[in-house]
C-alpha cells in the first residue's frame, strides 16, 4: 500500500523536475505544466508555488506567508497544506 504522502511542517515541498511553473504571455497568466496537464493557479496558489525552492520547510513557508499576507497562521497553515496535498495527489508537487 502506498497511499497519499504524509505532510507536516518538517516536510520540504518542491516542484518535481518535470513540473514547470511559467508565465504565459498569450493568456497573461501563470501556468503549471506537467505531463498532459495544465493548471492555472490563482494568485495566491501561484505565490505559494514560487516559494517552493526545494529548501524551505513547510513550517517556514507558512510563517512567511502568514507574515506577508498578515493572516492568522492557523488559517494559512490549513489552506497551504490543503493546496499542497491536492497538488501532490495530482503528481504536481513532491512532498
Amino acid at each position, binding site marked *: 500500500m502506498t497511499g497519499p504522502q504524509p505532510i507536516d511542517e518538517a516536510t520540504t515541498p518542491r516542484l518535481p*523536475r518535470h513540473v514547470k511553473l511559467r508565465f504565459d504571455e498569450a493568456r497573461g497568466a501563470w501556468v503549471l505544466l506537467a505531463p*498532459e*496537464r495544465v493548471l*492555472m493557479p490563482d494568485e495566491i496558489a501561484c505565490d505559494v508555488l514560487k516559494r517552493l525552492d526545494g529548501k524551505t520547510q513547510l513550517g517556514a513557508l507558512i510563517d512567511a506567508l502568514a507574515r506577508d499576507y498578515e493572516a492568522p497562521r492557523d488559517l494559512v497553515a490549513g489552506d497551504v497544506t490543503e493546496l499542497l496535498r491536492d497538488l501532490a495527489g495530482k503528481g504536481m508537487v513532491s512532498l
Partner: protein
Amino acid sequence: MTAPIPMGLLAELTHRCPLQCPYCSNPVELARPAGEIDTATWARVFREAAGLGVLQVHLSGGEPCARRDLPEIVAAAAAAGLYTNLITSAVTLDEARLATLVEAGLDHVQISFQDAEPAGADRIAHMPGAHAKKLAAARLVTKAGLALTVNAVVHRQNLDRLGAMIDLALELGAQRLEVAHVQYYGWALANRAALMPTRAQLDRATETVEEARRIHAGRLVIDYVVPDYYATRPKACMGGWGRQFLVVSPAGKVLPCHAAAGIAGLVFDDVREKSLREIWENGDAFQRFRGTAWMPEPCRGCAHKEEDWGGCRCQAFALTGDAAATDPACRLSPAHAAIGGLATAEASAAPPEFRYRRFERGAEAPAPAPAPAAAAPASSLSGIPAVSAPHERVDP
C-alpha cells in the same frame, strides 16, 4: 467565431515505426518518409505554436526516434518555450540517445506497452523482443531523472492483464499511467472485431482502475480513456474541435485531430504555405466544426453541448458517413443502439487475425468494418486513444 487559444500541439514527426500495432493512431494512408518536413520547418512550427499560446508539444509519430534530427527538434521546441513530451515505442531508445534528448531539454517521456508479458506484447506490436527493449528503455528514463508515463492501450486481447500492467507501471517508477481503451478509427477500425472487449471485460477494467487510483493516490496518476461503443455520452474529443489542439502531420498538413484526414471533404492547409496562426484561426478544416453553430439536433439544443462539444467528428463520419451527425457514442444518436449491438456481437465472436499497421504498397484503404448506419468511408483513420480523449485539462 473567434478562435480560442490552443494548449497542445501533436507533432507527428514521421510515420516510420518499427512496430506494427493493429490499433495505430496514424492514418491508414501513411505519409512517406520522402515527404517529411525538415528540421527548420518544425522549428518554425514550434515558434508559431508558442506564439499562438500552445503550452505543450507532444513529439510523436510513427516513432519519433526514427528522425535522426530528433535532438535538434527537441531543442527547437524547448527553445520556443514549449513543454516537451516524447511519445515513443522506445524500442530504439538507448542511453546515448536519451542523454542527447535530455541535453536538448526534453521534459517527459511516454512509453507504450502492448501487454504485461513479453509474448503477448511482442505479438501485438508484431516485433520480436520489443517488450524487453521497452522495459530497458523505461528504466533508462527514470534513471536519467525524467518523468515517465506508461501508456497502455487496452483491448480484448490484453485487458485480462490490466492489473499486471498497473503493477508494471509502478515497478518501472512511472508517475503517470494512461489506460486507454482502443478508439476505433483507421487501423483500429479495420481491426475492430479483433480488439473489441466484452462489456464484462470493460466493467472489470473500470473497477481495476478505480481501485488502483485509490491505492496508489499520490504515487501514480492514472488517466482512463473509456471505449465509445459501450458509452452513453460522447467524449469531448480533443477537448472540442479546433478548441485546444492542433496536429501537424509528417508532411506538414495541419489538422484539428490526428484522425481528421479520414473525413471526406475536409481540406487541410500546409504549414509550408501558411502560418500556423492563419491556419488555426481561419483554416476551413478548423472552422468547420469549431464551437456549436454547426451542430444539428439533438446536439444543438442539448445542455451538454459545451461539455462534450458534440463528441467525435471522425467517429460520426466513420459510422454514419456524415461528419456533422450526432456522435453514435451518444445515446441520443439514432445509430447508438446499433453500435452497442455491434460491439457485443464482435466481442462475443472469436477474434479474427490482426491486420498489422504497415506501409502497404499500392494498397487500397482497409476493408471497412461493417457500420451500423451507413457504409464506413473508404479512407477512414485512426486515433491515438489518449489523444482522442480530453487530453489536457485546465482545472478551474
